[in-house]
């Protein structure tokens, strides 16, 4: 039970197919009948939403409709979580219990990994900011150091940089400032998306 509309342009068809590939991927853990029903409901929604759009081409109508409907992962996952937990608690079937546990574990692990990545990012940002300030105070001890007579490359603040040669010089400061700003903006945006997804 599925519906494929006739579009007047190829771009719209591609957008439609890509969107429903994502819908299919998001619904893998629910039974086929339920999956087809939900897909048909979403397809009907998009087609009707397209009719309400004021633009001309099918592709812009479809993009507007998708924009209003939202990402499939965002609205399908809560339904799967609810269903798996309900099945597990209602049926006492070990398979359902395991699937429910696995789904929740996977979601928790994903959140934990993302939190760790963002946390490490902020720590790295803090290190770069400290390096940038220290470069102004003790310039010869801060930067990227190459070994003069063998050994390993060092980045950061060295107490005795003697056997090494610092290669960035005062460029460490502008590069440090740019990296700090870019990282701060990027990480904070990522954090905002992360928080929004959890709401």
């Amino acid at each position, binding site marked *: 039970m599925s519906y494929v509309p006739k579009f007047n342009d190829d771009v719209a068809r591609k957008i439609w197919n890509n969107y429903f590939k994502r819908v299919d991927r998001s619904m893998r853990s629910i039974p086929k009948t339920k999956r087809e029903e939900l897909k048909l*409901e979403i397809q009907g929604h998009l087609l009707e939403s397209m009719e309400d759009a004021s633009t001309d081409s099918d592709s812009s109508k479809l993009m507007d409709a998708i924009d209003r409907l939202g990402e499939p992962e965002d*609205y399908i996952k809560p339904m799967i979580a609810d269903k798996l937990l309900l099945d597990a608690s209602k049926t006492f079937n070990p398979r359902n219990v395991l699937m429910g546990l696995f789904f929740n574990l996977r979601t928790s692990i994903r959140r934990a990994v993302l939190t760790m990545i963002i946390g490490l990012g902020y720590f790295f940002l803090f290190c770069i900011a400290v390096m940038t300030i220290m470069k102004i105070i003790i310039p010869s001890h801060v930067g990227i150091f190459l070994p003069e007579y063998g050994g390993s490359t060092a980045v950061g603040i060295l107490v005795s940089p003697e056997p090494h040669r610092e290669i960035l010089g005062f460029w460490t400061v502008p590069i440090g400032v740019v990296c700090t700003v870019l990282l701060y903006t990027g990480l904070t945006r990522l954090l905002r998306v992360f928080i929004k997804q959890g709401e």
Partner: protein
Amino acid sequence: MSIMKKKSKWDSQLRKGLLDFIILLYLQKKDFYGYELIRELKRLTDIELSEGTIYPLLNRLKKEDLISSKWVEMETGVPRKYYRITEKGRNALKDMQISWEQIVIAIQKLVGTK
């Protein structure tokens, strides 16, 4: 965060929190399909919500047996899934209405007290 932003977030959270109640109120009048319900919700409540969020909500109400659904074939195009309030849903709605009236009276008393 500015006062306006705080207000709009509070306003949006308040309206979203009432969605179950509003949906049941609509379904009490007649059967609706998903997109039709969203159109009505947007018109009445002015909620900034991603349209997809209605489906997990309807799904949950259905699991709680407060609403049921039925596919209806259309003359043209995709069949529509209509949602209908159940007897259990009507009873839950009565309880919700009582709670709502109690909250409104209590808040009005507080707002009136200076």
